[in-house]
């Protein structure tokens, strides 16, 4: 990782925390366990905590639990080598010898990669359901647990009606439990139910976050999502290829905002409440492809696999985030244009 990349992350953390640091004061001198700690979300949370430790004397000790600790040192050596970070290589379903001085937990273990869900749905279900149970049973044994943030998913709402501008947390929705891609959202739903049971029966202080879509540094361009693929296609010289007809609607949040929101939900979120985390700025994939192409001196061509009149399923995945904005005083600091610019820049630096 280059110095310029590190500076980019540092600047992002500075922007998102500017003037608001005291909101997280209750994390000072605390121990936080992040499951799935070396993934995209965990890495950004770690960057933000490291920033708080380095620049604002938070003195937080992080435990990052993951099955991929061995490759983390290669991907993020500047984090892996820090004395305030402890890597724990463990399967979330088999928690043994986990530190007991933890007082905050962020449960983010489970891949959101749809390819893994399609190829190995039973493992997907197992990791989410058994993993959630295991971490909460562990939490119930801790002497002093302040708060647990369960990372759920915006996918638990099922299909978003086309005329619904953004999905609010109150949307009941509905999933087709027999659909080929049902394993992940259904498991995330049952994971929220498991959290609710533990909250009721064990009085565990659990709050849920429901993430939508993100784009930014640390997100591999090989991940199976449209925006990643568009940026990759463009970096390869194009054309940008849209699967489907381009009318699919999405929104993307920049990860420093994501990490800030998650820490705020952890600290300030009301126990038993679920908060959407994402951007309400909706965009069609056609518009998104044009936006990305426009970032290059020679804009790559954009091609679509289907004609518009033949499009059968137009999907939409955009959150309403009024609850987080109004009750937790959160905001979006990085808009989509800037997010795309910074992601391209980050990846160009990585390629170089």
């Amino acid at each position, binding site marked *: 990782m280059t110095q310029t990349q590190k500076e980019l992350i540092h600047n992002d953390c500075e922007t998102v925390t500017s003037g608001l640091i005291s909101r997280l004061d209750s994390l000072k001198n605390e121990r936080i366990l992040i499951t799935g700690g070396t993934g995209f979300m965990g890495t950004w949370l770690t960057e933000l905590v490291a920033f708080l430790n380095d620049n604002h004397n938070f003195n937080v000790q992080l435990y990052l639990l993951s099955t991929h600790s061995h490759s983390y040192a290669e991907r993020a050596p500047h984090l892996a080598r820090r004395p305030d970070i402890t890597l724990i290589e463990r399967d979330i379903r088999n928690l043994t010898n986990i530190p007991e001085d933890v007082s905050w937990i962020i449960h983010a273990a489970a891949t959101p990669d*749809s*390819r893994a*869900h*399609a*190829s190995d749905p039973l493992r997907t279900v197992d990791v989410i359901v058994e993993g959630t149970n295991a971490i909460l049973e562990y939490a119930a044994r801790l002497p002093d647990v302040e708060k647990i943030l369960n990372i759920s998913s915006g996918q638990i709402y099922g299909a978003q009606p086309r005329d619904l501008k953004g999905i609010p947390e109150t949307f009941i929705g509905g999933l087709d439990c027999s659909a*080929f*891609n049902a394993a992940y959202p259904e498991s995330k739903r049952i994971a929220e139910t498991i959290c609710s049971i533990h909250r009721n029966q064990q009085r565990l202080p659990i709050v849920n976050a429901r993430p939508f879509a993100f784009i930014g540094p640390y997100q591999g*361009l*090989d991940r*199976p999502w449209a925006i990643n*693929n568009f940026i*990759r*296609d463009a970096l*390869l*010289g194009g054309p940008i*290829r849209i*699967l*489907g*007809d381009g009318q*699919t609607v999405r929104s993307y949040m920049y990860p420093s905002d994501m990490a800030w929101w998650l820490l705020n939900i952890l600290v300030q979120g009301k126990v038993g409440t679920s908060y959407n985390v994402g951007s309400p700025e909706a965009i069609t994939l056609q518009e998104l492809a044009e936006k990305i192409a426009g970032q290059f001196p020679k804009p790559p061509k954009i091609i679509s*696999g*289907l*004609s518009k009149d*033949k*499009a*059968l*399923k137009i*999907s939409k995945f955009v959150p309403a985030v009024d609850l987080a904005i109004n009750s937790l005083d959160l905001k979006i600091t990085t808009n989509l244009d800037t997010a795309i610019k910074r992601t391209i820049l980050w990846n160009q630096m990585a390629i170089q």
Partner: protein
Amino acid sequence: MKKILIHDVTLRDGNHAISHKITKNQIAIYAAAADAAGVPIVEVGHGNGLGASSLQVGESAINDETMLRIAKENLPHSKLAIHVIPGFATIEKDLIRAIDIGVDVVRVASHCTETDITQRHINYVRDRGKEAYGALMMSHMASKETLVDECQKMESYGAEGVIIFDSAGAYLPNQVTDRITELKNNLNIPVGFHAHNNLGLGIANSLAAAEAGASIIDGSARGFGAGAGNAQLEVLDAVLEKMGYITDINFYKLLDAADIAEKELLKEIPRIDSLSIISGISGVFSGFSKPVERISKEYNVDPRDVFFELGRRQVVAGQEDIIIDVVSKLALQKRVSNV
């Protein structure tokens, strides 16, 4: 008017018909002719695809690298495509080099119920910025619902289209309509069809697919392909245009290319011989015809019985070694019944 993307499989599926013995000169001549006709995508390689040359399914006369280099040199406009079955082809050993040579389109294939094995290959192709399609072989063996499940997996892996293969030439037009319609109703990516002509329905089934919404159709010059051959490309182009579809192919030059194929590539024009019909009716991969014929003759067994037994066992491409097992069992039964 609806556009149909034609994939010309002459130099790949046709390789089955000559036991994978296509030569450098044949590739060069036909590729240049197809390119001149404006055929958008030309597929080249061993009949079973990249990395498949082997004693088990037949050894190529020339290696993959040579085939692809020659083809690329003669395809200044058309895209160069390959057929890839994970297992035969690995990413490290085969795919990296193929893309380095200049392959533009990769069709990652698996048996129709085994698409899980295509994920890594599709990912790799997309990562290299090339076009990745999913191909489901022997699709007649799965229900339309199963095909939807499998195609949705491929879509989730990043396939930019899916093509169902009638590898045994077993479909009737209404079955094609049924399956393509179901796929169109459940996928967000283009759907395609690859015909074999065992029951004389290669063109009819391709038209049924197009009418049901398929936008990718395979064909080969003079139908040059495994078993009774594929949908005959020049006929396909003619009838598609007549029905109002656009293929962007120069028809006269396509006819010229077909004439060249007949002269330079084909030992004999594909025809629907008795074994091809049996292959279609029994639902056994067309590429089995030659080895079944050869081994049956050797053991003095009726090859039609062999096909029906293979069909009963639901064999798939790549299981050619089962032929000898079936033939020897039938030969033994014959001897016992004669005693």
